[in-house]
């Protein structure tokens, strides 16, 4: 029987390393950074990146049922989109199921302003954020990130790698610029004045 390794990847000096990286990505349940892979494989980070390039070519959409993606500051394997229906019949994605509007606004605030405390979230939204924060923590989309300075400082929260993965973000830098969203203060001020004048007249 031929015991030579299955040649999934074209002959390359980093073939052996690519197989190790592939194995690490299969057993991982969260994205792995280059540094984490290099440490686990006991190899050089630059060679790891080369190996990841090889794997990216092999596991790309349309070529395999598995896709290597760059997400949440690392690399991870996921199912190909063409298999999504079959995957959905097998299991659901419970993390984002039933996310309320309050929870979405809260996670947006944490993503943009984090680490941020509950009182600060409540100040921006104008209502208590307790249940939205608890729900997001339970889903693993946000996590505690220290406390505010000073005695009795409130717990602060940040988004997790799972948040980036669920929303398919390579990093938080992939979020749209805050300045590009919503009306500016000037526009709102003008509308406020217009309403006040309309009432006065």
């Amino acid at each position, binding site marked *: 029987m031929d015991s030579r390794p299955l040649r999934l990847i074209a002959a390359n000096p980093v073939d052996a390393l690519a197989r190790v990286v592939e194995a690490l990505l299969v057993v991982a349940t969260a994205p792995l950074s280059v540094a984490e892979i290099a440490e686990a494989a006991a190899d050089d980070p630059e060679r790891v990146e080369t190996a990841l390039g090889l794997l990216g070519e092999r596991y790309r959409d349309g070529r395999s049922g598995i896709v290597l993606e760059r997400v949440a500051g690392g690399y991870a394997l996921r199912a190909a989109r063409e298999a999504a229906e079959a995957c959905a019949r097998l299991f659901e994605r419970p993390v984002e199921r039933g996310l309320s509007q309050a929870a979405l606004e809260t996670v947006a605030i944490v993503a943009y302003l984090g680490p941020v405390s509950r009182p600060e979230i409540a100040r921006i*939204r104008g209502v208590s954020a307790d249940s939205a924060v608890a729900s997001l923590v339970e889903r693993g989309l946000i996590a505690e990130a220290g406390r505010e300075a000073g005695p009795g400082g409130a717990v602060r929260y940040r988004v997790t790698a799972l948040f980036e993965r669920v929303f398919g973000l390579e990093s938080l830098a992939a979020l749209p610029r805050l300045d590009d969203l919503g009306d500016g203060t000037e526009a709102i001020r003008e509308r406020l004045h217009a309403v006040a004048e309309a009432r006065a007249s």
Partner: protein
Amino acid sequence: MPSTVRDLELDLDAFEGPFDLLLTLLLKDALEPAEIDMAAIVVSFVERLAARDELDLDACGEFLVLFSALLELKARGLFPDEAAELAELEPEEAAEELARRLAEYRRMKEAAAWLVDRLAGERDRFFRLGPAPLQPQPERQLAPQAPAALAEALRGLAAEPPKVSLAHMALRFPPVSQFVARFRALLSRRRLFDFDVEVSALSRVEQAVAFLALLELRKAGEVALSQAAPFAPIRVARAGAARAREAGAAHDEERTPQWTAARSA
């Protein structure tokens, strides 16, 4: 031991002296609550309790009440009064602040909408979920165990638990009407009497029922109740007798105005 708490000697960084003096200084704003080490006060109290070698529940209760008030005072001091800050704004500044906050919220709402769209576009991405593999597993640290001690603990668990007392279920309450009749008879012989003296020989349950009877009589307008001060003896008078006394001795009201519960018939 009523003085256990108030006389509690404290030796803190910001204060040295008895607990009640600390409270007085805090209430007069002579001391900043944020500077007081609350944990040190608890430690002092617990040490004092331990030194006495007996559990003084009255002192514990008093300490809890005073200490929780102190904690609230400190907590309030630690958080800025945002409403008061906003109230000081001029109308123009308030409008500016409102516009700024609305804009901030509007941006976050738009960001949430962007996330909803993003989520909809990512619905066909399936990936493996699970605990982070690189997270170190917490190790359970067990203290060294002696088999004999373990056996002793298990023996304790295996022992028959003590019987739960059901004595209180057999409590029989004397009827209220019995005390109503008794007080009526008393007032037919005398114009007034001290409730505390009349019930002093009774059990706590009987005293409670007697008090209910007293309230019934007052509700019916048959008696007038007065008390010189909180926890002072309750004086019960025939309603008519009370009215006569009120008319003849108006100056007495100055001594017991707020505690007089005489009902005008």
